[in-house]
């Protein structure tokens, strides 16, 4: 059963994330962590921007926050976000592929902590951050979903993942939410029955 969903996006993410969040079931309890590339000085702007699109609680990660259900965590600007078993950690190590926060760092540490119980989602983006992390996540038994590059505002990021990894799902943006609902809620139903 999935323990954590990690999502990475760059250019176009501010259009894509609201669509994705609106299609998530309010019953979804699997925690979600998001890296959206953004300017190093941007503060809580992203949180305020996204909150209207979800009833789940939304939070910018603070150091050593425990990973809680029914919560969406945002990587703070100018920090790497790392998964450390059942909590988050932050670092100001050098940027990875020019990015801090780096999608690769989030995905790789999610893979280490949760392996096959992690789901990685790569949305629109104009660079290749995430390609390495998604490959690692897949190699550790996790599930990888990408936004169909032909429907992405900027196809480079999901296409880079596709070139590197045999992804589990290639979906238009509007169907990614229901896929996540299915993966996380269906498993639970079959367990309880």
């Amino acid at each position, binding site marked *: 059963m999935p323990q954590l969903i990690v999502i990475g996006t760059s250019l176009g993410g501010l259009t894509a994330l609201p669509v994705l969040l609106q299609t998530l079931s309010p019953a979804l309890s699997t925690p979600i962590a998001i890296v959206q590339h953004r300017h190093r*000085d941007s503060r809580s702007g992203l949180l305020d921007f996204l909150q209207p699109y979800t009833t789940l609680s939304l939070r910018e990660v603070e*150091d050593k926050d425990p990973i809680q259900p029914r919560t969406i965590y945002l990587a*703070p600007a100018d920090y790497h976000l*790392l998964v450390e078993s059942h909590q988050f*950690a932050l670092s*100001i190590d050098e940027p990875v592929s020019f990015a801090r926060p780096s999608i690769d760092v989030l995905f790789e*540490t999610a893979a280490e902590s949760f392996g096959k119980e992690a789901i990685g989602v790569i949305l629109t983006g104009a660079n290749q951050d995430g390609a390495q992390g998604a490959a690692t996540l897949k190699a550790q038994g996790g599930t990888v979903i990408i936004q169909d590059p032909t429907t992405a505002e900027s196809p480079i990021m999901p296409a880079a993942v596709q070139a590197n990894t045999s992804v589990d799902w290639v979906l238009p943006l509007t169907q990614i939410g229901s896929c996540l609902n299915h993966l996380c809620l269906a498993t639970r139903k079959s367990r309880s029955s």
Partner: protein
Amino acid sequence: MKNDLEEIEIQLLLEGIYQYYGFDFRNYARSSLHRRIRKILADENLPYISDLQARILHDPACLQRFLLGITVNVTSMFRDPSFFLAFRQRVVPLLRTYPYVRIWHAGCSQGQEVYSMAILLQEEGIYDRCRIYATDANETVLKQAENAIYPLELMQQYTQLYLQAGGKQSFSEYYTAAYGNAILRHSLKQNIIFSQHNLATDRSFNEFHVILCRNVLIYFNADLQKHVHYLFHESLCMLGILALGRQESLRLSPFQSHYEPIANREKIYRRLH
């Protein structure tokens, strides 16, 4: 299974370094530590952490490379300008009431934020009565901090951050350009004392009016964070100021109730008792 083995190898490596050299990384947060050790392993061109352990224990030059790889953080002058602005507006007025101000900048890395503070205090006209103790566990990094030389290409970004932080002059007045570098003005250094101090193993060395420790505790696990909060509480005078990083908090401190927020969003606190 690979990860379990890696964890065992890392524990042995850290234990070896602690027992032989006295540097204690055993309570560093695991996720960053693992990444950094893997990077060092690749740089050293070694297959296993056990090989790295042998090289570090038998070759002090390798230890130096390891220490650098494990401890360097990448910050900038006036990182989080709103923090420096809040410090200027809320903390400086408090500091004006003291005849003499001792500031401890713990984990100063390459010095960018120490000089930012020196600029701020100079512009507020109180630098003459301040003494900044800038410490870091790593000697190499401290030397870089003391040199006060940064790549010229960063100055444009620093200038922007300086202005957002409430800077009152032209930022270019604070450095001289030479050979692709920016050399900071000498007067900024005059009241800074650089010295080696390891938060994990060294004790309190003075009583301070202000302690700045930003984005250092994120590299420590909960136990070591607690230990450092003891150290800070012990080293801070009554009504002294504690400033943490933007995404850090007093949540893991046993002294949370001993502080009140002065600028909550900027993680600036004052010791009450």
